[in-house]
């Protein structure tokens, strides 16, 4: 994210709360390390942080976890996003040394800065310190870009990306696959196709 955009966000939030130090510099920090190259080993596990260092600070990771769990909370079917490892996934994502991921880094860390500023403006506290009801008030304003106020468009774009990352990080894990009742990825002797009763109920047989 460029400096102009970051400033625009800060101004949009009213800037009554002191912006976090070096907020835009943080979003623009160059990535550390190199990508995995064009011939990586596909057969071994690559836990987040192994191929390139994770770069979120402890405070950023705490905020990431709280926001992920607001988007995907635990319910009767499955745990919440952070329990599925989504914070590591997002940290790996924004730390990845590829230009398109660096764009996302700017949006995510810039958005974290906006949340901090907005929480301070409205509640006089950091986002992670305000109560759940207050957090939801802020999220409600930015959860749908098509309905967001003009001044909140950038923040809504951040929220949309963050929700996408949270969902992608969650549903691609064993916990997420179970939540969606995905039952494939097992070798079968034959493929029977959908049950005739189901096709009949849909008017397809």
């Amino acid at each position, binding site marked *: 994210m460029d400096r102009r955009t970051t400033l625009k966000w800060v101004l949009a939030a009213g800037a009554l709360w002191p912006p976090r130090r070096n907020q835009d510099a943080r979003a623009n920090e160059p990535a550390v390390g190199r*990508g*995995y*190259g*064009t*011939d*990586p080993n*596909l*057969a071994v596990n*690559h836990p*987040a942080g192994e*191929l390139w260092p994770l770069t979120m600070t402890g405070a950023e990771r705490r905020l990431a976890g709280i926001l992920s769990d607001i*988007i*995907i*909370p635990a*319910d009767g*079917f*499955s745990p919440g996003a952070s329990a599925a*490892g989504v914070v590591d996934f997002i940290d*790996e*994502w924004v730390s*990845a040394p*590829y*230009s*398109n*991921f660096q764009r996302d880094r700017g949006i995510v860390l810039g958005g974290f800065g906006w949340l901090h500023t907005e929480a301070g403006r409205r509640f006089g506290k950091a986002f992670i310190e305000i109560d759940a009801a207050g957090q*939801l008030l802020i999220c409600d304003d930015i*959860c*749908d*870009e098509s*309905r967001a106020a003009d001044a909140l468009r950038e923040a809504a774009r951040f929220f*949309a990306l963050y*929700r*996408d990352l949270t*969902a*992608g*990080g969650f*549903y*691609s*894990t*064993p916990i*997420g*696959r179970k*939540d*969606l009742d*995905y*039952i*494939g*990825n*097992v*070798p*079968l002797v034959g*493929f*029977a*196709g*959908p049950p005739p009763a*189901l*096709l009949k109920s*849909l*008017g*397809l047989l």
Partner: protein
Amino acid sequence: MPFVTAETQQKDYDVIVVGSGAAGGQSAYTLAMDGARVLMLEAGRNYSATESPMFRTPDLAPLHGADTPDKPFGFYDATVDGGWSVPGEPYVRASEEDAGRFEWWRARMLGGRTNHWGRIALRNGPYDFKPKARDGLGFDWPIGYDDVAPYYDKVELLIGVYGSNEGLENTPNSPPGCLLPPPKPLVSDHLIRQRAKKLGIPVIAGHRAVLTQPLDFKHLPARLHPGNAVAQKILTDDMRSRTPCLWATPCGSGCAVRANYQSTTVHLPPALKTGNLDIITDAMVYEVTLGRDGRANGVNFIDRRSAKQRHATARVVILAASACESVRILLNSKSPQFPDGLANSSGKVGQYLMDTVGSSVGGQIPLLENLPPLNEDAAGGDQMYVPWWLYREQHAGKLGFARGYHIEFGGGKRMPGPDTGAGLEWLTGGSYGAKFKQDVRRYYGSFVWFSGRGEMIPNDKSFCEIDASVKDKWGIPVLRFHWQWSEHERRQAAHMQRTFADIIDAMGGRTQHAVQSDGAKAIAPGGSIIHEVGGAIMGSDPKSSVTNSWGQTWDVSNLFINDGAVFASNADKNPTLTIMALAWRASDHILGRMRRKEL
């Protein structure tokens, strides 16, 4: 003798095959099984499908397997050292505008792009070899469907292709016993078939190179290699050792049990078993060399491990390096005798580059929401497809574009990945929290997508040449691409968009965006469908074509082009099956002429 090096290669090969993909694999197979001594040169590293990350889940991969510039089709894609760019091996685009842009996907690995391809294996029909006779545009091939049909049969029998015979116009049936039974359709396939039918659009079984049952190893080897007991024995053993589809894990990651076609799992193992095939990997061919008699006597290549220039010799040279790479080798093979590149007396080398017209629309289908748990991994895609169905209307001039397209489509409860649950605002109004989880469950498996794959007519604005200054890291001059679509392709892409929206509408579904009525915006950039062919087209006149009907270059009698470069048109049908059929046919021809001492 299998894998050798520049130092341990033999001196007396009958044939050099440059490239190891669909064309190179088929050529080496046909030649080696019939006793020719073959040296195959592959620019990339050795590769075995035992490296395939089968059954590995996204969470075990960096970024949960998401696409990156290093692996543009995702971490688990089989492609090695390839993609839209190859490190140290640039190419030049004459234009960066969408309308004039060309993208070139390469793979630097044994088996080339066959390791990750979609396995869609369609025959060209009779019209597809004589398109100019039908509508006056482009070029006719010097051969017709009947010349190639026996080789389509052979390739289908050898590699294993599922499909059905429907007797539809310009959509050939295969003779009895050629095709394997198609897989069962998914729920979304059933729905698409039912609703498309109301629009007059036929939905039939797809054709893909995936074993839905074991190959008939008792009968096929004798049918494929009559009178050749050694080849029959080798092929019998090889067919027995292939496992049918496990109905799981994506084909594009490679198949260690050899249930689908990759050159590395189907062509090369039996060819190596004959003892007649040597392979040098990491051998980047850049030039065909000529003897004093004006005939090819071998090739020069860079041994990528030592970065040294090497030479290999043979009686016959076959280029099967992919359409553009074969063109590059010809244009870089300059000599006093051939100052404009080898086999280029027509000036046509590099001309008439074609890709496939591509355009896609996705939709969400309420009828498919909240279905019970289903395993829909199936055969890995394209259980069904739509062949071009408007031949009559098009021929009557009612459509405004001259050539057709087929439709590939998909849906179902695919393995969740890093894009699952993304971009749902248009359906959810931006839900988050408990409601978002319910929404993702509701919509999971309710999406369908349609992709048109259409014929491009060759034109003189779409070509490649050698760039005047840029060289790759080996010092080899690189290609410069020029690209332009015609109104035929743009209108076809707009027609695709309307058709897909109509089908989605007939399914009771919605598209996220209004469909694109401007064909120039609907069409994918040149090269991006990875069906590039042409550049050294075959013909019946040495003045206007590069090779004759056997892929033999007009200018150099023992130099053949066996890959997609010789295509005189690019039917909507995906080119791989035709590449293999032509390579088998050309290789049979070469064997005959070698036996008669004509080569």
